[in-house]
């Protein structure tokens, strides 16, 4: 009898690690799905009392990548609560384990990257949020 081999997939809730951000009471949440070595992930950071943001905040990937993923593998938004949602991205990562957030500046004819900081693209405050999605090939099998 032939038995169809199931696709190896698993979705897991994880706690993303944010770099250059002091969390305070902020809440970090995410989930990732593994399709073999392929990773699809989401990460959410809801800022709250006690947080602080240094320049070039970023995110540690749920698993080390097989090779340095391009910035085009990630998309992000910044939510200025009650006011505006900004399109963000990742700058081209230099490592297989993390990336840094960037926004698009309007100080040029065509949009160009600008590093996110505690005042870019707005002055971050409690209840603001960051959302990131991405996909890449993991270095190691499950």
């Amino acid at each position: 009898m032939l038995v169809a081999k199931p696709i190896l997939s698993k979705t897991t809730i994880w706690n993303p690690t944010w770099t250059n951000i002091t969390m305070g009471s902020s809440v970090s949440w995410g989930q990732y799905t593994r399709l073999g070595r392929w990773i699809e992930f989401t990460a959410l950071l809801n800022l709250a009392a006690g947080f602080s943001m240094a320049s070039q905040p970023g995110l540690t990937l749920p698993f080390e990548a097989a090779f340095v993923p391009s910035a085009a593998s990630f998309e992000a938004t910044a939510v200025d609560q009650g006011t505006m949602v900004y399109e963000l991205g990742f700058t081209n990562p230099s490592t297989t384990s993390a990336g840094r957030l960037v926004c698009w500046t309007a100080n040029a004819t065509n949009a160009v990257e600008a590093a996110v900081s505690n005042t870019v693209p707005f002055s971050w405050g409690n209840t603001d949020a960051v959302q990131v999605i991405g996909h890449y090939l993991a270095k190691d099998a499950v």
Partner: protein
Amino acid sequence: MSRTALDPVQGLVTWTPTWANVTMGSSTSTGWYVRLAQRWIVFEAVLTTASGFAFTGNPRCNLPVPAHGGWVIGPQFNGKAYSSGGTKCPLFFDQNGDANNAPYPVAMNQTGTYSVWAYVSSTVPFNWGTSGDQLIVHGRYPAASIL
């Protein structure tokens, strides 16, 4: 084309994208794709400029395998333009490509009230040079056929 076995359901395939409206000169074209669950393709194509490079029009790359249904659409793609001088620009893609080609990449022109498309060309989103500038195309779509 080479294939590296990764697990029972997918493999990483390296592939050499072809670029329309580009004089390559000594430029390099590299790419990879994965096939998920037999049907879903995620790929990346990278053009790195070198001596003799020129855009002869609006560039775009082909797809690593034909797309299902005859069309792919802009929101399935995401891109970057990097100059060797450090300028980094997000790229989006116009309304549709076809079964064998990605849509045309566009920068976001910000001279009006709202951002609008500006097709990538020899001067958009910057003056492209012949020493290490990069055009990156990243996309996902269903393949026309399974393996």
